[in-house]
């Protein structure tokens, strides 16, 4: 039997960085093949080569046993290779059917769209693919999971037999991910080949037939999913044992640090985003806020850090009413913030490591001499200390943060925020997009801060993370807290259901 895809000795370097180093990959027909690796391991580069976005420096590609040159995505599509990217490329105002046929629409006499033909063709097609979507709805009204399905349909409609999915679950809820897996199995039954890129071990293990693990641009090995387990995969991927459970210090005496009462907020579109939210966060506690994104988490974090004015309610830090305090005042009172959008809110990318590390303290006596002068000696000493303490990989203190990896950038934020001796840390999606190593590091630090008595509000769409770290969990749905749970008394399934409004606890 010939394999669907065979890549032989593929190498690709960007300037001095070797992204792919003599990679061999064999994917059988009608196989779900996992491509596992940390960020920067070379998964996406390898698949971009297969999809014609990059040309390899050396190596051969065989599709269905025949050697091919793929120099553009359109060449890849002709060969039956399709790719669904992390970011969807749908036109929001068009219907599902229109999006699917976009670019190769059936027409009447070349000028007019043949809507009837479009509907029939797409309907037929969807039925055959076993992927169910309402064709007439505009795509902007669809949930992320359904939009993704439309993307997959779009690729299949272009005749793809080999489907590359780039980190498809990173945007999905557990239920949606389950739906995606079902669709993937259906595709397999139709003899389609699926290459599934991910860094989530559990998923890869659950859905794939075989798994190829990449590390630093090289293949570590290819294993049968049924013959391996989480620990082995993690070790292959990271190159060492990974901590996935955290031991937390048991503390009896906890005090209320943050008290949120009937907090209301309006989102950017003028609609209520928080509807009378009430909760407390204690010292020595990580309170996890679970929820599908867009249910008020962003507004919650912004209101608590002073970036968004509350529409009602009260926020107390200890005994101090901070409902109307400015961001600077809150920083002064001991609130640290790890924002979800680290490029936009967390960092000034064109500032150096040092300049980013003193952000928020630039007017404090620690870093100034006289009243207005920055003291670069002090700032530089401080930077050196933090770079060592948090093992930030920066060539010099003057390296621009823009030129650092995502994990290192997040470390800069974490170093800055955690070194201020905060009473409360608001951490929003703190490990999003980070590789296993960096994720583990950030989580470990969060637990460390908790054990030192910090109150932590952990807002995350990653249920694994919420369950692994939290002392208590609240579930937010449509701007309301719909449940408060202890991790020992609940399951990911139950939380997942609560997150989608399926059940009220």
């Amino acid at each position, binding site marked *: 039997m010939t394999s669907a895809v065979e890549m032989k000795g593929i190498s690709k370097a960007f300037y001095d960085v070797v992204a792919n180093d003599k990679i061999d990959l064999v994917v059988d027909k009608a196989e779900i093949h996992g491509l596992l690796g940390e960020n920067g391991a070379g998964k996406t580069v390898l698949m971009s080569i297969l999809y014609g976005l990059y040309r390899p420096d050396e190596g051969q590609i065989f599709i269905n046993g025949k050697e091919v040159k793929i120099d553009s995505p359109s060449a890849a599509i002709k060969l039956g290779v399709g790719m669904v990217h992390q970011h969807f490329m749908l036109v929001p105002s068009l219907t599902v059917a229109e999006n699917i046929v976009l670019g190769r629409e059936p027409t009447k006499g070349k000028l007019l769209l043949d809507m009837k033909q479009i509907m029939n063709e797409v309907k037929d097609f969807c039925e055959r693919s076993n992927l169910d979507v309402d064709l007439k709805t505009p795509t902007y009204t669809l949930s992320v999971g359904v939009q993704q399905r439309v993307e997959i349909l779009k690729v299949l409609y272009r005749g793809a037999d080999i489907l590359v999915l780039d980190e498809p679950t990173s945007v999905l809820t557990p239920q949606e991910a389950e739906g995606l897996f079902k669709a993937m199995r259906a595709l397999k039954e139709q003899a389609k080949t699926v290459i599934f890129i991910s860094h989530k071990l559990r998923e890869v293990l659950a859905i794939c037939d075989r798994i190829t693990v990449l590390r630093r641009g090289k293949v570590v090995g290819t294993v049968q999913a049924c013959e391996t387990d989480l620990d082995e995969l993690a070790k292959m991927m990271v190159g060492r044992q990974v901590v996935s459970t955290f031991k937390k210090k048991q503390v009896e005496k906890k005090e209320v640090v943050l008290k949120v009462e009937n907090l209301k907020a309006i989102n950017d579109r003028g609609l209520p985003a928080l509807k009378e939210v009430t909760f407390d966060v204690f010292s020595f506690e990580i309170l996890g806020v679970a929820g599908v994104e867009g249910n008020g988490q962003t507004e919650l974090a912004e209101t608590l850090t002073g970036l968004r004015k509350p529409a009602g309610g009260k926020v107390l830090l200890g005994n101090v009413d901070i409902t109307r305090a400015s*961001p600077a005042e809150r920083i002064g009172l001991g609130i640290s913030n790890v924002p979800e959008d680290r490029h936009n*809110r967390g960092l*000034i*990318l*064109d*500032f150096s490591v040092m*300049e980013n590390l003193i952000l*928020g303290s630039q*007017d404090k006596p620690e870093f100034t001499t006289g009243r207005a002068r920055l003291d670069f000696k002090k700032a530089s000493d401080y930077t050196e200390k933090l770079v060592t303490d948090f093992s930030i990989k920066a060539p010099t203190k003057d390296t621009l943060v823009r030129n650092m990896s995502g994990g290192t950038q997040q470390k800069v934020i974490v170093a800055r925020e955690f070194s201020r001796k905060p009473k409360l840390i608001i951490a929003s999606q703190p490990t999003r997009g980070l590789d296993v190593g960096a994720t583990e590091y950030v989580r470990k630090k969060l637990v460390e801060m908790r054990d030192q008595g910090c109150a932590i509000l952990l807002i995350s769409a990653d249920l694994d993370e919420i369950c692994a770290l939290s002392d208590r969990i609240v579930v937010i749905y449509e701007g309301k807290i719909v449940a408060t749970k202890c991790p020992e008394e609940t399951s990911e399934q139950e939380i997942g259901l609560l997150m989608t409004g399926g059940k009220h606890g």
Partner: protein
Amino acid sequence: MAEEMRQLIPRAKQMLRGFFARIPSELRKIIPQIIAIILAFLVGAIVLQVTGYSPLEAYSALITGAFGDVFGIGQTFTQATPIIFTALAFLFAFKSGLFNIGAEGQLLVGGFAAALVGISFAGLPTLIHVPMALLAGAFTGGLWGFIPAILKIKLGAHEVITTMMLSYVAFYVTGYMVNYPYKAPGWVSQTVPIAPSAELPRILQPTQLSASIFIAVILVVLTYYTLQKTTLGYEVRAIGLNPAAAESGGINIKRGMILALVISGAMAGLGGAGEILGVHRRFIEGFSPGYGWDGLAVALVGGLNPVGVLIAAVLFGALRSGGMVMTRVTRVPLDIVSILQALVILFVAAPMLIKYLLRKGGIKWSSS
């Protein structure tokens, strides 16, 4: 022959690369600007040739005119002085992410305020009178920057519109003032001369170069120092690069923007005051041939760097002063100067082109 040529190219590339490698990294940042200037002069030469003038003659007249003798140098720096102020004004606001394109108006009101103080308090000691008039200029210019800042923060009015419109207001208000209430006797639209005690000394007779150039140079240093070494500068730059992160880092971005525009306006106003007190010694309608607009261009040509601004302003001043000599000696119309200025700006604004040329030459040029 063709074969030889082909062999020459890689050798030339290698030489170029070796040359570029030896340039320190700080200087390497201004390579695009230098290339832009060279390109502008090359294209300008074509224009001259096509229109029937000798580029060589014209350019040599231009350069000797601008730097050939004491008088030329004096004129060059006289012309450069106000542009340094307005370019720094644009630069400072730009660092906070704001486009203050109203330096012209700020310069005019600053100049007028300085003239009023210079006329009014005759008899004061120079050591008090001059600083007072200068401060009045800076203050009024700052006020002219404060208005758009407040409009932006309270009403969301875009500063590009408001600063430009306020320039017109400044132009017509000062124009009215010197045509009616403060008009000196005679047919020229100007005020009476300022008191001698308010005059900034001329430093290179018989040229008009005044001590204002010292203030300009001090301001270059101060601007650099403020931006790089102070908390205010740090905050201003943070706001300019990423206001959202600055805000969540506890920086008061409204306060920062107001300060940046006020300081920017004050710089332009101070420049206007220097012109009045040092060069014209009275407010004359139309004393600025567009220093405010030149400032914008010079800030860009100077790579938005205070020291670069100083160099670029001298270049623009040289074009102005040398251009006049060139016209007199070679009968090349003065318009060629405007063409050269426009070309320099055009090539500076097209960094992609220059990056492309450098890459073709095999030179790695890392820059922002």
